[in-house]
Each structure stands twice: as structure tokens, then as C-alpha cells.
């Protein structure tokens, strides 16, 4: 039997998909499931970040604000009005997309570093806002105390389970959907225009690309999907607090995962999360008390090294190795 490169890659893809779906069946230790969820969660939000930070070619450093908006919208709706988080998820996404457009209008006019600073200020501003507002009318925002979502039994409608496995599959499906959308968009006019505008706005405009419009669309998409992750987060942790869902650390982490993996590529955020998150989680849990800060030190070191030696992210070299590996498999099969 002979396989072409394409077929081999397809087979590998299928195999990995099966493995990922079967992981909860084989791994009984939910602690590891938890790590997988963390990893996939970051894959997801870094992929959503990538719309703006990667394809549109700027550096947003305030995406945690969208997580906060998503988490707060669905949580307030759920805790106070009993509206299912699934509905709240959508509502949060839409609100967040609108805010994304509003904030995008002026910020996209800024260049390079100024854009980054504006998004930092936006992210921090949203966080401080949530921290300081206790109530708006009868709506309890919780202020600095945050909002606890009471556990009221396993329920799909209420988006809560004791077991981690439902969360595993939800984030997995969310990730696959987002990746599919990304792949689809990047192969459409929208993707071409977005990337063109990111690479060289002036040249793109002269080819008929309304750069500002496509950047705004990207911002709206990014905000929408990030906010959805916010709802997931709220239901997964069952507690939200401005400084944990809206923190600047989170915003930075999202960006760094995508950048280390390779911004502007579909695989980049996946690889970035795969490299950084298990490392972070394992060092934190196994070295936690012993050497606090070691994992962040390593993160910093990786950041510096990647920027010096692999400025386009680790995806570049890994893809090369993988392609070589597939080629070899083809020749083996043939001989």
C-alpha cells in the first residue's frame, strides 16, 4: 500500500483526533484532565487572540478584559436571573464584540507600541471598573468580592459538573470549532485581506483592501470568542473575581503563548500552549512550594530565547521537522 504525504498527514490527524477524544477514557486521574483543560483553554484564547495579534499584525495586551466581560455577563445573568450560562455565553460574546469594535475604532489608528499601551490601559481600566462597582441598580456586580456561582448539582443547562470530563469535552469542542472557523476564515477573502492588511497596510489598501474594516471584524471576532471562553472559565472555576479574570498577567500570558508558538499561524497558539502551560502547571504543582517563581522565570527565559533565535515562533522549526518526518514515512512506504 502506498500513501502520499497528504494521506499520511490526514491519517496522523485522524489518529490524534481519536487519541484526544479518548484521553478521558484512559486517564482516570482527573488532575491530569484538569491540566489538559487548562492547556486547551489557553490554546483556545490564544487562538482567539491570534485574529488580531497574529493575522492583523498588531499587539493587543488587554484581552483579559474580554474574558472578564464574558464571564461577568453570563454569571450575572445566571446567578441573578437564572438564565442558562449557555445563553449568557452568547450574550457575553455579543456584548464583548460590540465593546471590541468600540475600543477598536480609535485604537487601530495607533501604531506599534502605542497600540499595545492603549490595550493595556483598556484591559486594566475594565478590571478596575469591575473592582469598584458593587451594584448597578439592582444588578449585583460584586465589586472586589467577585461572584461565586453556587454549585447546584450536575446539569447541562446550568453548565456545571463535579467531574472534570464534561469540561474537557466542552473546551475540546469549543477549540475544534474555533480552529475550524479560523481555518475557514483564513482561506477566505476575509483571511487574505486581514493578513495582507497586517503585513503591509499601504500595499493592501492599494489592492482594494479596506484595512480598517477587516481589522475591526477581526477585533469583533476575537472579542466574541474570547468572551465565550470567559463564560467557560466562570462555570469551570465557579468563581469570578476582577483580578483573576481581568488581570494583566492573563492578558500577557495569552499574547505570549501565541507569540512563542508563532503568531499569525494557525498552529502557533496550539504549540505555544502545549509548550508553556504543562510546563507551568507541572512546575507549579510539583515544585510549587519549593521554588515559587521558577516556572515564571523559565517562561521569561523562553520568551527571550525564542525572540532571539526563533522570532517567528517555535512553529517554524517544528513544522519543518514534521514535514521531514512525513517525507521520510512516504519513502519508507514506497521502498
Amino acid at each position, binding site marked *: 500500500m502506498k500513501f502520499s504525504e497528504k494521506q499520511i498527514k490526514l491519517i496522523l490527524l485522524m*489518529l490524534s483526533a481519536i487519541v484526544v477524544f479518548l484521553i478521558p477514557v484512559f486517564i482516570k486521574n482527573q488532575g491530569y484532565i*484538569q491540566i489538559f483543560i487548562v492547556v486547551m483553554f489557553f490554546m483556545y484564547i490564544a487562538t482567539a487572540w491570534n485574529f488580531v495579534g497574529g493575522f492583523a499584525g498588531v499587539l493587543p495586551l488587554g484581552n483579559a478584559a474580554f474574558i472578564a466581560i464574558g464571564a461577568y455577563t453570563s454569571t450575572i445573568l445566571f446567578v441573578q436571573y437564572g438564565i442558562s450560562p449557555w445563553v449568557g455565553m452568547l450574550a457575553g460574546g455579543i456584548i464583548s464584540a460590540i465593546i471590541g469594535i468600540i475600543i477598536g475604532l480609535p485604537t487601530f489608528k495607533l501604531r506599534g507600541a502605542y497600540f499595545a499601551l492603549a490595550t493595556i490601559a483598556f484591559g486594566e481600566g475594565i478590571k478596575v471598573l469591575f473592582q469598584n462597582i458593587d451594584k448597578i441598580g439592582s444588578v449585583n456586580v460584586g465589586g472586589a468580592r467577585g461572584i461565586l456561582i453556587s454549585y447546584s448539582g450536575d446539569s447541562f443547562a446550568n453548565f456545571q459538573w*463535579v467531574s472534570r470530563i464534561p469540561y474537557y469535552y466542552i473546551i475540546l469542542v469549543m477549540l475544534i470549532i474555533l480552529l475550524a472557523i479560523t481555518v475557514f476564515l483564513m482561506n477566505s477573502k476575509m483571511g487574505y485581506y486581514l493578513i495582507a492588511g497586517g503585513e503591509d497596510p499601504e500595499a493592501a489598501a492599494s489592492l482594494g483592501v479596506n484595512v480598517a474594516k477587516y481589522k475591526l471584524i477581526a477585533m469583533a471576532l476575537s472579542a466574541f470568542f474570547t468572551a465565550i471562553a470567559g463564560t467557560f472559565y466562570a462555570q469551570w472555576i465557579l468563581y469570578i473575581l476582577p483580578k483573576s479574570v481581568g488581570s494583566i498577567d492573563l492578558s500577557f500570558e495569552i499574547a505570549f503563548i501565541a507569540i512563542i508558538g508563532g503568531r499569525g499561524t494557525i*498552529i502557533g497558539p496550539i504549540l505555544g500552549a502545549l509548550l508553556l502551560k*504543562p510546563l507551568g502547571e507541572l512546575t507549579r504543582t510539583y515544585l510549587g512550594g519549593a521554588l515559587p517563581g521558577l516556572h515564571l522565570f523559565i517562561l521569561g527565559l523562553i520568551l527571550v530565547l525564542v525572540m532571539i533565535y526563533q522570532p517567528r515562533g517555535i512553529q517554524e522549526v517544528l513544522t519543518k521537522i514534521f514535514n521531514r518526518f512525513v517525507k521520510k514515512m512516504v519513502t519508507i512506504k514506497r521502498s
Partner: protein
Amino acid sequence: MCKLNWFKFSFSLMLFFFVTLFSGAFVNSANAQKKEVVIGNILPLSGPSASAGVEGKKMREFIVKQFNANGGFECKGELNGAKIKMIYLDTKSNPTVGVTDVQQLINGDNVDLITGAWNSGVTYPASQVAEMHKVPFVVPVSVMDRITGRGFKYLFRIAAKDSWWTRDQFRFIDYLAKKTNKKIKTLGLVYINNDFGKSFDDSWLKLAKQHGYKVILNESYAETATDLTPVVLKIKSAKPQILLVVSDAADAILLQNTMANYDVRPWAVISSGGGQADPAFIKNTGKNADYLFDMSEWAPDMNKPGLKELNKKFKKAYGIDVNGETMDAYVGMHTIIAVLKKTCSTNPDKFRKEMLRSKLSTGPFTVMSYPYVKFDKDGQNVDAGLILVQVRKVGNKYERVTVWPEEDARAGFKVVFPQPNHY
């Protein structure tokens, strides 16, 4: 384009697969042993409350080392001969990290029991996770009211809750007024803008009304504040007679020093056992903290049997004196051990039953400010009593001196009120 991306995607999933294999190897080794009680500890080992967490960890290690060296559990049942294994995870004082820690402990490390988490804001959500999984959670320190009273079956709190703290703070103010015949009219409230601070402020406002004091200043500041001078200037211009304060560690130091530097001296400053109880506080404020009242559950100068000996041993092992933080950990650990000894099982329902039945008053439980540890059906230690200490100069050092209730007060010390040189 299309092809390429799918290939990359499949490649990533491949990597995922390898990570899975890798972690699968861990699973087996983690579950290999099972003749021990695994206790998960979530503590702030780094971040703003780290010193409290680190000292609490020392006391826990001290107790468990001794306990295991003495042969572990001796009882009739499954635990006979078992030893205690402690797992410590850092919360960084961050609720989210705390929640993931608990999930990790329960799902990954299969702990039988959890204790911690010092910060109320962490304990509150983290305990829900334990409850969902029916894992007992023993809270030695966190005081926020909302932690108990949620109908949780496996949550037990040894510390007094904040409404008792504030209640006793106001009783103390009443006491001061009566004792010294001073007319106390005005209060100033200053709190850190987080869950801990906010819940104190809420009940202060209520109590002030009930007790007939006028709140002339109610000010919050951000956790990240770099300069507290504006707050101090506000106090200075409002001039409340009594200043009630709730702070975390860093800001407690900053606030106290800034007040001293600006000569802002109300009749009394009463703090709430947060940052002011942190061992770093006196170290970093010294004279500036003179005459500050702080609320506490314990103080080293209380004349309790066994305390001196305990301090000697502990100091030998870790080089520090026992203090409020370590003593909270001390009672917490001993409560857990005492109850486990009785049940001789890690079954959470048996644990709950025994927790509710026990009234612990002998042995290690004689060193507390209150006579016994006993829980109501909400899991609250019913008679967790409180004392007030005043920072005073003893010899050439500043110490926390117990001054109230009068019967617990250190010999030779009385409440100083209003403080000298007040405005």
C-alpha cells in the same frame, strides 16, 4: 494553504498524544502507595500574603513530622499505623489559583482532606470545590462570614467569622468608652478594596448604626495602591476619634508608617487581624505601630499551659517564635488529627459526624484563647473567642500585648486609651 494548516493541526495533536503518554506515566506512580492519610494544604506561599503562608506551613510540618515520628495513627480501624502525607500548593493569594489547586489536590493527588487557605477570598470559592467532591475542608483562619452558612456538609471553620470580629470590635469600643469615661462619637472606616475588606466594611456600617456612632469617613483603597498618603490626609482632615482598619500585609505597613509620618493619631486605631497580624508588620513598622489595637484569636502572652514548652521546641526546629499564624495552623492540624484518630477512617461522612460530636478541650487545645473547639452544624467553631492586643514597647522591642478581655490581659498591662499625643 488549506492542506498546510491541516497538517500543522494534526501535528499538534500528535504532540498532544505524546504529552498524554508522558503524563500517563505519572498517574501510576502517584497512586502506588496507600497506607497514609493525604492532607492537601493550600496556602499563600508567594505573593502578598506569603509570610503568613510560609509560617503556617512551618508549623504544619513541625506537627506532622513529630506525629509521623511517633508512629502515626494508633487506633482501631483502617487508619491504624497510617502516617500523614502533606501536600502543599501555593495559592499566591489568588482565588483562581486556589480553586485549581483544590481541583488538583482532589482529582490529581486524591487527598483525603484539605486545609487552608488563609485568604478568605481563596477559601470561599475553593471550599465549594471540595464540597462538590465531598472532601472535608478545614479552615483554620479565613474569617469572611459567607464561608459558612452555605449548607456545606464538609466544611469546618475554626476561626471566628468576621461578624463576630466586628461585633467584638464594637464591644471593645463600647468598653473603651465606658472604662475611660470618654465620649466616643465618630468613627472612621478604612478598608482595602477586596473581598476581605469589603465584608468588614459592610458589617461595620451596620454595627455603627446599632451602637450609635457616627461614621464620618468610609474610604477604600485599591490593593495595588502605591501611595496611601491621600488616604491618610483624608483621615487627617476628617479626624475620626476611632479608626477601624482592615488591610492586607503590604498596605498595612504602608498605611501605619504613613499615618505615623503625618502624625495622624486618632484616639485609637483598631485593626482587624489581617495585615497587622502578619509577622512582617511589626518588623517593618516598629515604633510607628505603637498603641495600635489589633484583633486576634491568640497571643503569645496568654498564660496557657504547655505554651512555653511548645514554643521552645518550635523555636529550636525553625528558629522563630510561635505567633498567631502558626498557632492557627497548630489548632487546625491538631483538630484534624484528633478527629481522624477517633474515626480511624478517611471516610468524609464519618469525619463530619465525629467533627460535630467532638468537643476538643484537652492536650493541644489548651493553648488557645477559647476553652474548647466545637462545631455547630454549619461547621462553625461555636465559641471561637477573640481578644484584643495592643502594640506596646516591652523592653526595647515592640510586642503585641493582650489587653482585652481584662481576664486574659498580660500581667502589668492595661489598655492605653486614648493614645498619647492624639489629635
